[in-house]
């Protein structure tokens, strides 16, 4: 088992939002690779190593940035499925969305998201949260392939 660099997975259907997140991460010196996914289903496939991503090495530590409003499978559903599956339950998730509806926020925390960030983003705080989680991730074991 080797420590691999943290992979940041961004599930976001809006190209502009994706670009903004990427720019801010780069500016903050988070050189980790950012992998952009277009919707919730793709995010689930990617994280589970299924569908188009069958055979992907899922042992690499990841951090997921999830938009709530996405076509096909929405962010909340992705979060629910990730937390319901022991293989992916420990992956830290940051909800990144335009909704500041208290009920929606409450629901996401109940489902087990690590951080909830409301867009338009306070990028400073956003970057801080990612850094902290990334650091956290360096010392926490991530479920391996063999646990499937």
């Amino acid at each position, binding site marked *: 088992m080797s420590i691999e660099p943290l992979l940041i997975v961004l599930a976001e259907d*809006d190209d*502009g*939002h994706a670009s*903004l997140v990427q720019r801010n991460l780069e500016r903050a010196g988070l050189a980790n690779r950012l992998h952009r996914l277009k919707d919730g289903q793709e995010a689930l496939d990617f994280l589970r190593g299924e569908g188009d991503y069958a055979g992907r090495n899922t042992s690499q530590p990841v951090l997921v940035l999830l938009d709530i409003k996405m076509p096909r499978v929405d962010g909340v559903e992705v979060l629910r499925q990730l937390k319901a599956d022991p293989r992916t339950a420990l992956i830290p998730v940051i909800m990144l969305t335009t*909704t*500041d509806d208290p009920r929606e926020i409450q629901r996401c925390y109940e489902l087990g998201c690590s951080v909830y960030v409301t867009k*338009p983003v306070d990028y400073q705080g956003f970057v801080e949260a990612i850094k902290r989680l990334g650091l956290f991730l360096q010392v926490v074991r991530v479920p391996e392939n063999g646990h499937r």
Partner: protein
Amino acid sequence: MNTRLTIFKKGLTLLSVPLLVQAVFIAVLVKAQADYDHAQEWAAHTKEVIAKIEEVHRGLVEGYSGIRGLVFLDDLTSTELHRRARERTPERIEALRVLVWDNDRQQGRIQELASRSGAFLGWTAEQERLVHSGGRDRALTQLDAGAGLLGAARAMIDEIRHEEEQLDQARMERLHQSAARRLWTLVGGGAAIVASTVLLALLFLQGIVQRLDVLRDNARRFSEGRPLRSPLSGRDEITEVDRAFHEMAGNLNQQKQENEMFVYSVSHDLRSPLVNLQGFSEELSLSCRDLQALFHRQDVPEAVRRRGLALLDHDIAESIRFIQTAVGRLARIIDALLRLSRAGRVEYQWQRVDVAAVTHKIIEALHDTISARKAEVVVGELLPAWGDPTAVEQIFANLIGNAVQYLDPARPGRIEVGTSGGEAMVGGPAGLRVYYVQDNGLGIPRAYHQRMFTAFNRFHAETAQGEGIGLALVRRMVERHGGRIWLESTEGVGTTFFVALPAGAEAETETGAGVEPDSHQWPAPTQESRGGRSPCPSSRS
């Protein structure tokens, strides 16, 4: 039974039943009158018979006295008397016979009377002949025999008269009876008509009037944004109207919810492009900074640097500034819209709310602003309300916040919060408690009272912060509580906002009984203006 009849049928019944009673009454009356007339006729008939008998009697008596005059005095003038008696008596008896044709016993007696009077009249003729032929003395001796014949006829006359008198008595009695019956028919029938009409009218009107009252009450509740009463039962027109009214109210309510949902999703969708605008304008500024650094490098020609920096510092910087200002404003408007739609959708936690505690919390939070404005806040007695604690806090926070914000800098500010009793409650909805927030601030011109509770209604945009939705939010929350909000204001003197909220235990019938007042809400005229005019603090938000 009332409720099953339509108003039309009720009206018809109301008309027809007394009409029927009247018809019966008239028939009975006509019958009574006919009876009376009949009795009267018979009574008159008997009298006529008696008169005829008397006539016969008198004729006979005259005939006898004529003979006596002739016999004793040789009085020729008296000849007329017995001659007339002989002439007329038979026809008089005949007339009498015709009169009593229906009475067999009387017929027999008249027959007898005819023969007896015939004997007497024969005697008078014999006497006359004797006198004329000079047999006066003989005639004198015959007088007693004549008296006997007359007596026999008289006896028969008495018998006939006696019978008729008895008949007369019976018929007079019948006449009186039928007169009395007629009178009672009149009185009783009249009373029956009046009684039946009044009874029916009362019976039906009670049903109609009470139900109309429910309709009227519903209309008032609707206009005040309070929950409607439960639908009327029955099948008449009033029920129909009531049902239509409930449907209309339900549709309006649904429309309102749909509107809020629409506003919510639209403003939510607007946020996504807004994030891009905001984020990329930020990126643009950062890129400009990089460009600036680039232009300051040594290897850039002076002319290019000057031109480039001028573009960056003026044109581009200004463009970005305007974009960012606009985006900021847009973001605030969208945010306000979201809050407004959420105020109508968020689920309420119904409970007893300690308004006094809520108010103290708000005043504490506003402490710095209040002391900065050297204002004094007086809190009177605040009784608890029944509602959602968060919403109630927002309502009072808005009103007290406004009061502080729009104080008149020219005089020491004074704000009073309390529960309004007596006067303010008169005509107010039942089960509600009226609170007030009073200030001695700038006041609101009368012309703007109506618009105070409308969203985005700012007219001193330069001095006010926010988007001017505070009072619109307050109104929506008060409406959802089944309450009312209105204001009184005099320009330059101050403003008082009144909020009527469910009073708690007593009002639980409406709010706590599982029926959220919200389920029958519509835009209501929530303002009442009784104050003066004055420059309006732009948006009271």
